[in-house]
């Protein structure tokens, strides 16, 4: 639920970064992506993560083909047990649970990617300029970020969600982004600060490059693994936050997602009718999707720091 839970402490990477190992602007972007993928794939844990994530993405994309029924079709018997017709049974409203699980992947994957991407972008913009700037401007940003870090995220989300009623998934993404960017910004700032005093940056300053160019062309590429890592971290947090908000009934309960499935299961007391699968399956899917992101992060560490590469014994 809380974005602060799976954390790689900020200073960890600072000390060991070896700057200048990036490929520079000249390389084919496709090749860079492929090389990054290959690096991550070479780590067994990350490989499992990638496979899991791929599975859920396929589930989300091909949901209409894979699901046996429509997700909102409520013409079946209520609260039925598992049967060949309904592998995971039916809900209290008479919908097929398996179909809901498959369609539900869409929301979680979507929220994970979009909210993760947006909060990473904000974190990068703020974190980098904050780390590079000195003086009052830096202090102001420092103050704002600290404020967002100390205000309890979940209660803040609840208040914002109550205020921005009716927004559905868009609202949830917004809430998650508002409350989720600060941590990444803080991590990225530490890294920027550390890189700023390195020789290659000093060299760039002396050659008269503009600050924005230094920040985004010189410093940014050195933080690929950190940024990718913070993206996966933010995605995980977003997926869990979305589930939590919807479980509390603060989302749009008519959308079919794993979070709303849990909400309806709890609401119709699935445990009482003995259908604990209704609670178990969506929760397991949320956990597995979030796990896949964390597992990939094991490989991401190795992107710009060979020493962190898993399996590479010292």
């Amino acid at each position, binding site marked *: 639920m809380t974005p602060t839970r799976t954390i790689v402490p900020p200073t960890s990477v600072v000390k060991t970064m070896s700057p200048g190992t990036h490929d520079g602007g000249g390389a084919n972007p496709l090749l860079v992506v492929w090389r990054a993928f290959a690096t991550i794939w070479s780590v*067994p*844990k990350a490989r*499992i993560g990638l496979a899991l994530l791929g599975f859920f993405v396929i589930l989300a994309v091909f949901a209409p083909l894979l699901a046996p029924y429509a997700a*909102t079709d*409520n013409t079946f018997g*209520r*609260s039925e*047990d*598992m049967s060949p017709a309904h592998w995971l*049974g039916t809900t*209290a*409203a008479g919908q097929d649970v398996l179909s809901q699980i498959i369609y539900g992947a869409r929301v979680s994957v979507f929220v994970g990617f979009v909210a993760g991407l947006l909060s990473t972008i904000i974190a990068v913009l703020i974190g980098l300029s904050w780390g590079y700037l000195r003086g009052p401007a830096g202090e102001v940003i420092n103050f704002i970020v600290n404020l967002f870090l100390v205000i309890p995220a979940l209660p803040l989300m609840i208040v914002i969600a*109550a205020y921005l*009623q*009716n927004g559905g998934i868009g609202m949830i993404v917004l809430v998650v982004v508002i409350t989720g960017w600060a941590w990444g910004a803080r991590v990225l700032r530490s890294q920027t600060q550390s890189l700023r005093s390195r020789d290659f940056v000093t060299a760039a300053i002396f050659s008269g490059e503009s600050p924005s160019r230094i920040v985004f062309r010189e410093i940014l590429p050195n933080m690929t693994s950190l940024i990718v890592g913070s993206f996966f971290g933010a995605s995980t947090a977003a997926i869990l936050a979305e589930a939590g908000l919807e479980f509390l*009934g*603060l989302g*749009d*309960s*008519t959308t079919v997602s794993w979070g709303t499935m849990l909400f*309806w299961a709890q*609401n*119709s*007391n*699935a*445990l*009482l*009718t*003995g*259908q*604990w*699968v209704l609670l*178990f399956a969506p929760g*397991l899917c949320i956990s597995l999707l979030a796990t896949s992101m964390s597992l990939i992060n094991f490989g991401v560490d190795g992107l710009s720091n060979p020493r962190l590469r*898993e*399996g590479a014994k010292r």
Partner: protein
Amino acid sequence: MKQLRGHLIRTAFAVVGVTALLATSACSMDVKNQASGPSDGSLLVAADNGSPTFEKNFNPFSTSKRVATTYMYEPLQVTNTLDGKATPFLATGNTLPDAKTVVYDIRTDVKWSDGTAFTPADVAYTFNLVKEIPALDTWGVWQHIESLEVVGDTVVFRLLTEDVPAAAIIDQQLIVPEHIWKDVKDPVTFKNEEPVTTGPFVLDTFTANQYTLTKNADYWQADKVEVEKLVLPAANSQLDVVKNGYDWAYAFITDVEGTWVNADKQHNKYWFPPGGTITLSPNLTKAPYNDVNFRQGLSLALDREKIATDAEQGYVDAAGQNGLLLPNQEAWLNADLPDGGAVAQDEAAALAAFEKAGYTQQGDKMVDAAGTQLSITILTANGYTDWLQGLQTVQSQLGELGIDVKLSQPQPAAYTEALSKGDFDIAMNSFGGTGSVFQDMNTLLNSEFATPIGTGTTGNYGRFSDPKVDALLAELKSSTDEADQMAISAQLQTVLYEQLPVISMFYGGLWGLSSDKNFTNWPSEDNAYAPPNTWNSTPLLILTNLKKAN
């Protein structure tokens, strides 16, 4: 590297294995009734939910009082909200010499639980206290009373206007002892931790997790009370209710047969009588909702049976366009209404009505003269899941005619605000259930509540306004003759049927669960002497009717 992979694979297998085992071992796990339940004359009731624990507050005027406060304090009379019949409590009855006067005969053999005698002066004191401090006047009695005086063993109320239904409101005021309350500094914030009462029960023990009441040995009708002790825990989840062998609970439970009844087939019963009508309430100040043809079209497009089934899992009936709670108010039904006011789904008639309102079906879309698709937004409260499920069916039924239906679900507080200020197209809302046909109709239709949009109101949220209806309501208010009342009510039902100020859909149930293992004679369909709810004063009816099981 290889070693690591081996471990990973093994771990993965273990996880998958355990998951598969869990998934196949038990499709459903029954939670059985485990507790044997109390059999010492005590009654376990799920009436008061702590959040999550109890704060001690037995102030009968407070809105955050402990629920069982009303099991200890008594009003003058208790009305069965199902049929409007009153049972005398602290009064032995009332008479109306004219439509502006109510005379209550006060019971003389009653003692407060501290031994002091109860007198008509206590009644007068209570009403005067409520007048002096309007924050205590939760029933709004002083919107009806002009003055009151004690005359011998009676209390005479003079009313502001000819106001026959006022008696039903005066009935409900809980009476407090003058000798205690006259020394209370601030009755609004008073927590009344040691309640002195007249009712069948007195406070026994109190902890943050549970409180108990014991039988009041000096109760004036002690012979009617067979329950020795009431136990009210703070945690009453539905799992607890089913598992711990409760005697009485108020809860909407999914699959009540498979859960509650299944836990103790022999004893566990349920009864879900209608407690209000759930409606779609169009905003009558807005086009096209102010067009009766449009409303007619909406009404005819709905399959109310299906909506009722989807919303409340088949536990309640569809409601007719008559404003009554059937079958309990059957006697009041206007015999001239076709089908008793029930409206069946009729697509052709709906399309015809929409056409009169200026909307035609083009392809699979309902469009106006300009060719734009008809799109309506229905307001409901977030978390009212049964309503939401009903609305999803409404959405698909109207969708079949080509109407685009959007749902707006703010938090309950924001929903209440939008409703009160008229900030909606169509709102899902409930009305009725007070037991008084006048109260139900008046709050629904009286133009006095139809404040301008943006100004808050507490009834008639759709802002219905018709001088003829106001005149009928005034007539009903001043009528002392039941035959007259019924005739006027019949006319009001015709208004509801023809003008559709609200579109009735289904009844909201009162979700009563009871077990006759320890006590019998619970209210039921055949013996509807009280609604099964656990709050307000109607539980007094139940607690004075229960019999010990053999």
